[in-house]
């Protein structure tokens, strides 16, 4: 009986550890909001909360895509510049064509993003080029394209059709479209990763690529899928960016690739792959965004925002390391008991 009880205890402990990460981010978020609201009650005004959620939506959307890639032990640094490219291209696409519908623009954006993701994915999975190099190269290629295409011009909100702008500011039943879209995508991707065999294979690949190959997991196909999804979601994010801000320059979302990676890692997705959820990643995005908003409300120089995000990233990685060491040690002890 005692071994059964011990096994159950161990199971509960392991489950608790899995949840611990999401819970601790949520905890940090609550503390942050409470402290900020105590100092400046304005922070919790309807408009303030809405703004934070709107701002977090795009980052969270990118974080969901990035999670797919990072879980397979890869990385996608091209998403930031991709958002800029798609936002600007979509702006050009509707310029003087108010008849072009929202759905068409979204499809175009996702298609551009997915195409870029396909190139990234093909280079990483079929030509075995390290992901860091491929996507960094892609980042610069897109930036270059962007500058060539934009010639220093910008898209103005006045040129964007009202239907598209409504996507950025409108809402259904009081819930703004942006967070709604993000939550829908997050839940879809999250349940796919959790509950579907092919979804679990993403984790298998990140956990042990050789074993995944031997187990008959279509490794290349999954990695390609991860990049296409990441690219496609970046494309969607680009359209939403245009819808939200209306005014877009060529290097919109410049530097966001690293914010996305930070959000994902803070959210508990292991940078070496195999561990983490899209919910954690989205929470990470929400936390980083909330810190930004809080600093504005507290009248702290916004330059501190990056430094704080950085500290949080280091804390998250150190905590992960510590936790995994303790888990390994705990599991090893159980081995000895079993070994007898």
């Amino acid at each position, binding site marked *: 009986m005692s071994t059964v009880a011990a096994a159950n205890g161990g199971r509960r402990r392991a489950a608790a550890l899995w949840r611990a990460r999401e819970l601790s981010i949520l905890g940090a978020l609550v503390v942050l909001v409470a402290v900020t609201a105590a100092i400046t009650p304005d922070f919790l005004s309807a408009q303030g909360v809405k703004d934070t959620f709107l701002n977090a939506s795009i980052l969270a959307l990118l974080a969901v895509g990035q999670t797919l890639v990072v879980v397979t032990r890869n990385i996608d640094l091209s998403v930031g510049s991709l958002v800029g490219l798609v936002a600007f291209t979509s702006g050009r696409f509707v310029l003087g064509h108010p008849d072009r519908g929202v759905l068409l623009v979204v499809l175009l954006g996702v298609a551009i993003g997915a195409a870029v993701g396909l190139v990234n994915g093909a280079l990483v999975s079929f030509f075995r080029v390290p992901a860091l190099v491929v996507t960094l190269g892609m980042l610069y290629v897109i930036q270059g394209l962007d500058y060539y295409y934009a010639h220093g011009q910008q898209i103005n909100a006045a040129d964007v059709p009202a239907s598209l702008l409504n996507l950025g500011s409108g809402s259904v039943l009081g819930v703004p479209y942006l967070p709604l879209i993000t939550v829908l995508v997050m839940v879809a991707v999250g349940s796919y990763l959790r509950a579907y065999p092919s979804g679990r294979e993403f984790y298998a690949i990140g956990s042990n690529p050789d074993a995944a190959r*031997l187990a008959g997991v279509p490794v290349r196909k999954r990695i390609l899928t991860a990049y296409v999804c990441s690219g496609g979601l970046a494309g969607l994010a680009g359209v939403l960016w245009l819808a939200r801000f209306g005014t877009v320059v060529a290097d919109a979302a410049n530097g966001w690739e690293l914010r996305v990676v930070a959000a994902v890692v803070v959210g508990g997705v292991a940078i070496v792959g195999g561990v983490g959820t899209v919910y954690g990643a989205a929470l990470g995005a929400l936390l980083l965004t909330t810190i930004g908003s809080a600093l504005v409300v507290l009248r702290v120089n916004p330059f501190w925002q990056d430094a704080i995000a950085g500290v949080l990233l280091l804390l998250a990685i150190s905590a992960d390391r510590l936790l995994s060491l303790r888990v390994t040690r705990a599991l090893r002890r159980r081995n000895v008991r079993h070994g007898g």
Partner: protein
Amino acid sequence: MSDTPILALAGVSKAFGAVRALRDVSIELYGGAVHALAGENGAGKSTLVKILAGVHRPDAGAVLLDGEPVDFHGPGDAQDAGLAVIYQEPTLFPDLSVAENIFMGRQPRARLGRIDRRAARTRAGELFARLGVELDPDRPARGLSIADQQIVEIAKALSRDARVLVMDEPTAALTGAEVERLFGVARALRGQGKALLFVSHRLEEIFALCQSVTTLRDGALIATEEVAGLTPDDLVRRMVGRELGALFPKQPTTPGDEVLSVARLTREGVFTDVSFGVRSGEIVALAGLVGAGRSEVARAVFGVDRYDAGRVEVAGTRLPVASPTAAMAAGLALVPEDRRQQGLVMDESIARNVALTQLRSLRRGPLISRRLERDRAADWAIRLRLKYTRLSDAVGVLSGGNQQKVVLAKWLATRPSVLIVDEPTRGIDVGTKAEVHRLLSELAAEGLAVLMISSDLPEVLGMADRVLVMHEGRLVAEIPRAEATEESVMAAATGRTEAAA
């Protein structure tokens, strides 16, 4: 036994660059039979297994399934055809649960194609019950011992209901009872009409389990024959193509002073109150079942892991806790169990791997001298009779036995006074094994103190001056060479005797 083999290779050849790994090899696996594949490391056994498994595709020849040629485009194809492979190196996903590891690629489905976790858990439990082991299907695979990882691998193969089961040295990390249990399962599968291919270095296992045996040497087929009527000597002769002397040429030595002394060493939950000493010129074996805590003691002595209580002294000087640097400086060397992960940098050259432990002494001015590095590696290669093409080749291309020699060279080059070797001949072929034994024996004769962890009983009995036996984290027996027998060691290792330590 049916007339058509379930799976067969016909005239298969395979080359990797200039290396011809297999030349015109045929093998037939029949339902209801266990077939052995024997051969030294580098003979082409692993290549053959990988061709069967669909990892490699043959350059010439054909894979026949039920007599019909098939083309496996990847491991997935081979699995779909009813083939399961248990690899020498466990291939698990550390971050996923044990149940997920078993069913990866073939998870039981519930509605809408979702994974049925409850069914996976139940079925994993049933598989473990069938194997007679207690493992929690929900725990992550991270932290499992190699023996348990193998159990998961075997459960994985069983779960596939495979028609053909290929076992690539599955017993290398198992001992006694576990091997017997595996053999029981293998015989049961044979009774159910499955075809089994059993790759092993342990001759006694081939004779215990298999009906027929195919022997490879240097990538060529030497013989396929019935096991009945063969002797171990016959098989060894086919594998190495020459007569072997005594397998364990331990030279008699006169032990000198105690060099390594371990007193009341304890690591919470891992091992308790372990005390022993090793004198110069002496080979002391640390025997016991897998999981008894032997490797853990070695790691703690060398300073890789911490310990909670006790002391370690080398030549009278106490070593600090958890400092491999101090241990090395004091003259300790540790050849780890897991060559690929802990012993070598697989992508680096032979010369660089040998040089890793003594980079300081290879300096000329502030820079490392390549010439010194190469010369030192060349010296050791000759001394250890290393088989290689160029010293600049990656260690990864060497056979297991030769990789082990590189690890030995790397540590012997530090001129240690105490050498700890953990499973020195695990997964090594008969010929190289004898060479490793000769080497250890020579080193002891030169005054080195050797602590040898081994699960290979004949090796322990043949090599050791004294046998220390661990059971469940405690040292339970110390048996002098004269009294060490398979029975006395196994009795202590399984906890059947309460001998005073």
